[in-house]
């Protein structure tokens, strides 16, 4: 179904962030959020960078995709173009940050590449044309929703980890296994929302 009106784009943003959270209904970016809880460093800044990269990549990818046309070979090259684009944005960002605010850059240097090149950015940009047809508004809405949804799941994970730090935790479930179960139960809870806007 091709969607162009801004109302549907807003719906897609809300679905991707909350109702059909991209991380919990397709597993995109779930490994990244688990890894983010283990790295220290400024995480809100990381989420902000991810949001910016997602929107920028979606914005640039759309015109290039129109140029390529919709041949079968073009559809196969899409992922390569998206990764190349996010790599370009990443290099641009490092250059800008290093020049403008070196202190902030030092703080986020280790995790910046993962903020640019990850499954959330690439996945969202890949899903949009495939599922909802050619519309710039939809691409950007989906990428933005995916980034917000990713940060939401990350916050839930932090809250869960804090609640699981107790001595009565069975040793075989302590740590990552319990985190998987926690994500599984959250995914089950999100099944309550209907899937008329589905991303797979």
């Amino acid at each position, binding site marked *: 179904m091709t969607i162009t009106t801004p109302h549907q784009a807003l719906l897609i943003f809300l679905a991707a962030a909350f109702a059909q959270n991209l991380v919990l209904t*397709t*597993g995109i970016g*779930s490994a990244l959020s688990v*890894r983010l809880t283990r790295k220290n460093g400024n995480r809100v800044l990381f989420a902000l960078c991810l949001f910016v990269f997602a929107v920028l990549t979606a914005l640039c990818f759309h015109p290039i995709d129109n140029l390529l046309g919709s041949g079968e070979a073009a559809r196969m090259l899409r992922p390569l173009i998206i*990764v190349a684009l996010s*790599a370009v944005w990443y290099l641009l960002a490092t250059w800008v940050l290093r020049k403008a605010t070196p202190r902030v850059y030092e703080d986020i240097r280790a995790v910046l590449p993962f903020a640019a*090149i990850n*499954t959330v950015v690439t996945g969202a940009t890949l899903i949009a044309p495939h599922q909802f047809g050619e519309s710039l508004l939809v691409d950007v809405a989906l990428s933005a929703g995916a980034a917000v949804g990713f940060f939401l799941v990350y916050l839930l994970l932090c809250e869960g980890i804090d609640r699981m730090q107790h001595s009565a935790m069975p040793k075989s479930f302590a740590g990552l296994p319990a985190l998987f*179960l926690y994500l599984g139960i959250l995914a089950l809870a999100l099944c309550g929302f209907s899937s008329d806007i589905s991303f797979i």
Partner: protein
Amino acid sequence: MRLRSKKEYRTLFFDRAFKSNLVLVEGVGLCPLIGGATTLKNSVTMFVCAAVTLVLTSILMLGIGKKLPSVLRIPVHTLCASALLCGEAYLLNAYVSTELYASLYLFLPLLAVTTLFAYHGDNAVGAFDPRAGFVDAFSSAFGFGVVLCLVGGLREIVSKRTIWDRPLPLAVDLPEASLPFAAFLLLGLLAAALQRANTAAADRANRQTPTMTGGGDV
């Protein structure tokens, strides 16, 4: 180029593939597992593509890894992986089976940007010598593949009652098993089983080596 004995390579392989399995212990590369591994066929194709790509990129990176500035290492690594995966996608679609590509259109290319490669891109280059680098790359891909097939196979059995598209005489019919929540829960149980096996093995190891105070686990 430190040459190691065969035994050391075997323990390195066993360590990376099972004891500290990339997926179940480090929590890396979950995206293809949750979304893509709904049938055994999908899992096997992803396993093969991941193994080939990982090995080739790690060899490629060993070659030019040292000369690259640290900023460029991750992007170049991911770009190579993505290019390789596009090639494999084309081969899969042209020669193997188009409907398999249709069902994996999203998760096959995503393999390149999962934390599997990023994680591997970080530690692998420069830490090991080339031969060990190769073994490490293959064993982590193997470990990832084993979990992938396990999850994909189980979910296919439960949700479609078929294994490799051959129907099975089973009573249970749970189409929801292909949803992500089943994958997360299954991963949790597998990770718990592995962690329990690891702690049991660690206890057994401690008990055998006599401690300074004359052994005797109190």
